[in-house]
């Protein structure tokens, strides 16, 4: 047993897991709305998707406030220099049982690859989904907002692209979580807040 570091604070863990639940539920209902399968039926899928969307908006209001007031936003500042080291670890070192080149701490929770990935999610996937999702929700207001030139199809396609990227992120994220020193150690860290290295 190595040393234990308290990495993830209470709110952060709450934010992570409720966001995870909401996003998984929105992927489930979203792809039903997309016509991929039928589980709840179209009407309920739409209603659930909207409720989840507004819940996520509420959650984000708190999360943004928390990140700004605590300075936690700094964990998403990209650091380019060690990205290659981390990439090299996951593509070869990990198979040779080399130690992870990054040690998380309270001041530096995410390894450089994580920083870059989460920043990508925050700066690209999330805005794409948010903006298209809001436009989708307020379709009836487009002409009042001077957006008559918009086509629902473009907005829907943008939203769908965002959903696929989120799905790809989700799959990779789930897998990488299991590549800690035991398959469940990283999940435990996100549940208890304590990272064991």
């Amino acid at each position, binding site marked *: 047993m190595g040393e234990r570091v308290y990495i993830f604070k209470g709110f952060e863990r709450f934010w992570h897991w409720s966001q995870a639940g909401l996003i998984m539920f929105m992927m489930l209902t979203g792809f039903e*709305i*997309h*016509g991929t399968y*039928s589980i709840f*039926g*179209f*009407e309920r899928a*739409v209603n659930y998707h909207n409720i989840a969307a507004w819940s996520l908006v509420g959650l984000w209001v708190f999360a943004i406030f928390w990140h700004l007031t605590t300075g936690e936003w700094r964990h998403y500042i990209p650091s380019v220099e060690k990205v290659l080291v981390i990439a090299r670890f*996951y593509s070869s070192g*990990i*198979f*040779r*049982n080399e130690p992870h080149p990054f040690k998380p701490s309270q001041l530096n929770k995410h390894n450089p690859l994580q920083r870059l990935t989460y920043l990508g999610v925050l700066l690209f996937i999330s805005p794409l989904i948010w903006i298209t999702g809001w436009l989708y929700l307020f*379709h*009836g207001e487009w002409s009042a907002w001077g957006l008559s030139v918009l*086509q*629902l*199809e473009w907005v*829907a*396609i943008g939203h*769908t*692209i965002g*959903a*696929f*990227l989120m*799905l*790809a*992120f989700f*799959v*990779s994220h*789930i*897998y*990488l979580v*299991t*590549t800690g020193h035991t398959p469940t150690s990283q999940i435990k860290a996100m549940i208890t807040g304590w990272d064991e290295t």
Partner: protein
Amino acid sequence: MGLNSLRQSAGCVLAVLLYLFSVSALAVDEPKPLKLTTTADHSKFKELQREFQSGPEVTKACLTCHTEAAGQIHRTKHWKWEHLNPDSGQTLGKKHILNNFCISIASNYSACTSCHIGYGWKDANFDFSVKENVDCLVCHDTTGIYKKPPGLAGNPVIKDMELPPGSGKIVKGIDITKVAQKVGKSSRDTCGACHFFGGGGDAVKHGDLDSSMAAPDRELDVHMDATGLDFTCATCHKTSSHDVAGSRYTPTAMDKGGAHIRGKEDNSNPATCVSCHGNGPHKKEERLNQHATKVACQTCHIPAFARGGVATKMNWDWSTAGERDAEGKQVVRKDDKGRVIYESRKGTFTLGENVKPEYFWFNGDVNYTLVTDKIEKSEGVIRINWLGGSPTDGKSLIWPVKVFRGSQPFDPINKTLVKPHTAGNDDTGYWKNLVWDKAVEAGMKDAGLPFSGQVDFVKTEMFWPITHMVAPKENALACVECHSKNGRLTGIQGVYIPGRDANKLIDTIGWGIALLALLGSLGHGLMLIAARRKHQGE
């Protein structure tokens, strides 16, 4: 207490008695138990207290008080059976167009004009200016006994008579005097006497108008519900100067004008949904109001037509008409429900109940293929009428439509549709003799049109927008009826419908990326497991 006050008391009692007496003497007319909707009891009018021998006699009596009524009627489509479409310039109306049901009134007047609001239109020479020829009773009858059988050019049977002549069938005369004395407002029954039976029988033509609408329940028509709102036709088809609002030739496909308000000048069609409900009727779900900018109210609120238990005709193939049995007699065949599906004089029918409409962009423009228009059989299906509309013209909504399909006679040399003489107890009437060329020759001659002598058959379609049989809101279409692959709006172009539409390329790439992420993860994981096993083994 003295004598004085006693005298005063006696005086009071006397005064009260006198008052009571005078009141009872004046109160001869008791208040009616029911609140009447009219101020006139026509049976009390001297002009109507006589025996009437004919329809025009009754009209003459009506006109002694309602001096301007005939003039009002003479201006209407109901009277003229003629309508000049100001947009297309086409002269339409039953007098001119043909359809793919009984085809045309030319040469068949005596039968067809049993639904004319007049008396005596038996041939092309009918005088439309005669006031007494207006039939007041057919719309204002409240007794339900007033009938105008086919063959009498719009006249009712007053004295018992054999009809058709020589058939041995006796039609009983009606008490037209009683009908005249009990006139009142129009009703579902009076309008329905013709409009429920368009196309030659109950439910044949419209699909959303049939005898079940005389006293519908809530499920069939939420507005006309006989034990509920109890609308008559005129509640929506708000009539002024005898001119009934609403038209199949120039319908209102999109009404942006909101609900009608008293005192606000508004010449728009009062028969639209919007004219009462406004443009934002869905109070709880703004998203539905947003749908209404693309979708007609009728599309969601009339989930199916012919819902009242009476089947409507969906297809009429005239080309199979003419069969005779071994004895040379005309044949009638019925399906297992007892509904006629073949008649020698008419051909083969397909019937439908609870029919899902077809859906089209519709902007209110209706154009017709007229008998004078050239057609090519090689074009395939000839559209007797067609609906204008597109997703981008800003005037169209997605409408439910009954598409009536069939096959009917045409002239392959002159390349026109034809107007055959069908009804008629004579040598050229098709329904009697089953001979096409004679029937078409007689019909075209009556219409003053050329005929080559040859008859062929061509497939035709007619488009009937659906607007009646509005279901209660809980029975409106569920989202998934359209928001699904192969849903009701499969053929509708120009709108992105979530659940129906997806960009194939984006979907392929998207699933590809997700699959790559999954395969990459699995591959990486397997390699990791193998590496760790190997390491442990060392």
